[in-house]
């Protein structure tokens, strides 16, 4: 059975790699009860943070538009509608 040493943030353990034949040195794997179940997909792992960056930029753009579009007189009074 194919085995490999996996480092869990400092604690090293001998883990069965029978279900991750593609795992190679330096890969990150998800381990459950002594078995690697998956090699973490690094490209997919970053997608959420790219989406969050876009979300942030979108918000800034929207905030900018709102500032220009809404004259101060029509702003909701304090304690008014939530966004």
């Amino acid at each position, binding site marked *: *059975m194919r085995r490999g040493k996996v480092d*869990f*943030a400092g604690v090293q353990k001998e883990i*069965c790699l*029978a*279900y*991750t*034949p593609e795992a190679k040195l330096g890969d*990150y794997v*998800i381990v*459950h*009860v*002594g*078995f690697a*179940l*998956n090699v*973490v*997909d*690094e490209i*997919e*792992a970053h*997608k*959420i*943070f790219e989406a*969050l960056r876009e*979300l*942030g930029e979108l*918000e800034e753009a929207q905030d900018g538009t709102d500032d220009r579009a809404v004259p101060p007189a029509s702003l909701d009074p304090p304690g008014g509608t939530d*966004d």
Partner: protein
Amino acid sequence: MKFIDEYRDPLAARKLAQAIRRTATRPWTIMEVCGGQTHTIVKSGLQDLLPPEVTLVHGPGCPVCVTPLDLIDSAVAIASRPGVIFCSFGDMLRVPGSSKSLFEAKAGGADVRIVYSPLDAVTLARANPGRQVVFFAVGFETTAPANAMAVWQAAREGIENFSVLVAHVLVPPAIEAILGAPDCRVHAFLAAGHVCTVMGFAEYEPVARRYRVPIVVTGFEPVDLLEGIHMALLQLESGRAEVENQYSRAVRREGNRPAQQRIVEVFEVGPRTWRGIGEIPASGLRLREPYRRFDALARFPVAQGQVEESGECLAGLVLRGLKKPQECPAFAVRCTPERPLGAPMVSSEGACAAYYLYGRHRQ
């Protein structure tokens, strides 16, 4: 650690919480299936970040919690036999049986050992040919590849003093049982990420279609859960009911094929009784014919009578998402991790344990 710390980033969590607040316009109830996800939600206080429209209910994805009482009694009976070394994951030991727990059996002299992996039990069997080594094979699809490998390895090496007490359960039939109940109040599901790492998510697609319910495969860190909730809300608000994959760094649609092959080789699907829920057809795994000689229940016949649950424990309602742990009158009063009435108070994936540990009952 890489791939963990960034998914606990408070700024990312706040941004997602804002997106959730903007998305939710109506009341929605979302169930996270897995007890590991429940613990993240309660530990990180994610419920406090959500708007009042969004209610999270906790699902049955705690294998220890749904293992039936009579099987725990069988485990205690087998463990108490002379010559047996009984191996289990740690959180099974404190679960109360009808008369005692495995922990109490151990205190009474039974050779009960906690192992990290089922392969450790095989190693014990190899090293102790004069003893019978029994492993309590409890778990969902995530644990099935490991347990299948242990049995397969024992068969291949001819380690005949090894056997397993099987209590394997499957997620999709449980989701269907919850959706089919007349008192169901769940609008969307966060499917358990690691179950899908093994099984993929194609089997959830007919469920989403049949019950018109969004199912989002979701990871276990706070950012994962908030993104999963946001994805589910986007579907609910736009009237879609699809299977989506939030946990794409660990889950592919087809799952882990080598692991599935080993499961199918060793196990077959059969009916199973879920503690607190009842029998669900085709909701569990049992050993397939060439491997049945490794079935501990066949090797060690034990009397299996009708046993009564504690009348006071609401575990069944908690496991189906109908009650929150702190709604139980016994919670943190007559039921604590030290003196539990039911399994959800002791399991590391139990909802009651999460609320107790992270102090939700003190608010």
